[in-house]
């Protein structure tokens, strides 16, 4: 017994390292070291577990560790930064499935009581929903399946019925947790939980995926928690709770940034847009790169507002070069990043960091907005809805109330855009018709490179 005691004492050390590692994630300066501390905590937990007295054969452990490490390290090295949402979605799914298999192993490995059976079932339910839900999210993000919201009449009734059947089967199984006679109820729970995971994610549109992967991230933590209850393991509960809380916070931030409730995201695909009541007055003032250069050359402060369109055009390196040119010209440059820019929380920051934009130039929306009036030029690249002033003053607009970056308050706004096509929400944008707005039409990368060329003279 003393062996188990020592193992559990060392688990406390691991938990401490996880917690301290997360604490160091509060600043980009210490974050990398924090991640390493967390990894050391994990390594200690794994090594000390190998001394568990119940382990008699290491063959399959080694197989699992080797195969898992190989797949994990290849995925981590090969993934493109633009594909991070897909990778995180997949990892969420693996986390869920790992909890399912651990719970199943506990069930098939020994006789279980009703109480234990109930926690096993809970672990299987959360893990299965996380697994299939994440696979659907992955499919939508990578566009291997259509990213559109799949809605049909009576969807909520069907989902409710599935959930109810799971609960009934779970109760039946828990009362008689015998894997031979009670196994029918058990398979019903697993099968329907997998189905439920698919059903809850298909009605969510591609643009809402940042919310969904945050939520599934949270579920994968809760699945680890549930597995902790099955195994009576504190470390699983602590680590799972940290992940669960993290996912919940991110889900909340994403919902707020889109001005939608979680319920609205989960149950109604971003629907048809009602036509805007009032037509926008004013005219579009197109410019060419040389004109834009003259405006920028005279500016002493510039805010660059990147949207996912910038990443699609692969323009981030060119944008970074433009920022460098501006700075050499004695101009203060900042990147104003909207929380939903990119396809997952914080995604745009990673894409900019990859293009060598220093992190002290990355400014959050709430920090830049009060200063926008004093900024000479705002450059909007591949963003549309997140700078649409209709969100502030047009109550009839579907995006009314959504927080935006107030670029229209800047001295001059240069908007880089392929054409006058509307953004994701399908709305016209009064910003493009503003007195202080200049439109630079064309491919974002080419437009930015055009401006850089002017600077280089």
């Amino acid at each position, binding site marked *: 017994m003393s062996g188990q005691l020592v193992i559990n004492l060392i688990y406390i050390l691991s938990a401490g390292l996880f917690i301290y590692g997360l604490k160091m994630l509060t600043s980009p300066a210490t974050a*990398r070291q924090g991640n390493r501390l967390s*990894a050391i905590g994990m390594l200690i937990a794994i090594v000390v577990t*190998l001394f568990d007295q119940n382990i008699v054969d290491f063959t399959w452990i080694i197989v699992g560790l080797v195969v898992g490490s190989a797949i*994990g390290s290849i995925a981590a090295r090969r993934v493109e930064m633009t594909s991070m949402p897909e990778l995180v979605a997949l990892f969420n799914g*693996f*986390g869920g499935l790992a909890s399912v298999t*651990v719970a199943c192993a506990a069930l098939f490995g020994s006789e279980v009581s009703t109480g234990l059976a109930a926690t096993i079932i809970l672990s299987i339910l959360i893990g299965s929903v996380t697994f299939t839900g994440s696979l659907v999210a992955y499919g939508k993000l990578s566009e291997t399946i259509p990213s559109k919201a799949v809605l049909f009449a009576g969807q909520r009734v069907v989902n409710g019925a599935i959930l109810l059947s799971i609960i009934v089967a779970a109760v039946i199984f828990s009362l008689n947790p015998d894997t031979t006679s009670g196994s029918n109820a058990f398979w019903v729970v697993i099968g329907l939980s997998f189905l439920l995971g698919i059903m809850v994610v298909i009605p969510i549109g591609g643009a809402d995926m940042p919310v969904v992967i945050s939520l599934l991230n949270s579920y994968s933590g809760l699945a680890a928690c549930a597995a902790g209850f099955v195994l009576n*393991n504190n470390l699983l509960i602590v680590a799972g709770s940290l992940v669960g*809380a993290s996912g919940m916070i991110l889900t909340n931030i994403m919902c707020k940034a889109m001005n939608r409730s979680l319920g609205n995201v989960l149950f109604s695909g971003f629907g048809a847009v009602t036509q805007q009541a009032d037509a926008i007055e004013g005219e579009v003032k197109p410019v060419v790169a040389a004109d834009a250069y003259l405006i920028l050359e005279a500016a002493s402060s510039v805010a660059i507002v990147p949207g996912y369109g910038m990443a699609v055009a692969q323009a981030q390196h060119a944008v970074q070069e433009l920022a460098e040119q501006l700075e050499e010209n004695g101009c203060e440059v900042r990147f104003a990043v909207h*929380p939903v820019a990119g396809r997952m929380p914080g995604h745009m920051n990673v894409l900019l960091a990859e293009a060598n934009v220093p992190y002290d130039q990355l400014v959050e929306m709430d920090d830049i907005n009060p200063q926008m009036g004093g900024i000479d030029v705002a450059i909007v690249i591949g963003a549309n809805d997140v700078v649409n002033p209709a969100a502030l003053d047009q109550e009839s607009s579907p995006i009314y109330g959504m927080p935006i970056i107030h670029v229209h308050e800047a001295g001059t706004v240069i908007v880089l855009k392929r054409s006058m096509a509307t953004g994701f929400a399908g709305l016209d944008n009064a910003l493009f018709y503003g007195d202080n707005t200049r439109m630079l039409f064309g491919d974002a990368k080419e437009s930015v490179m055009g401006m850089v060329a002017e600077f280089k003279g």
Partner: protein
Amino acid sequence: MEIVYLSFILVLAIFLGFELISKVPSTLHTPLMSGANAISGITVVGALVAAGADQETTATILGTAAVTLATINVVGGYMVTDRMLAMFKKKH
């Protein structure tokens, strides 16, 4: 009593998580998520025992699958997080 004790840990850990993570700047939210993936791979600890204990073959197979899946999360999660965080540099 065991369940009460475990629930106690659960509640405290969730509060701690909220306190810690609400202080993470939005700049680092993507590495936070991939790091969370790695931490949720902690299931590997339970999986190791399931894969190595002397029990029915079914349980061993399930345990091995769990070790593999959780290890993918642990190794992949920490590595990709490190790769991302290495890109965040301060102005020269």
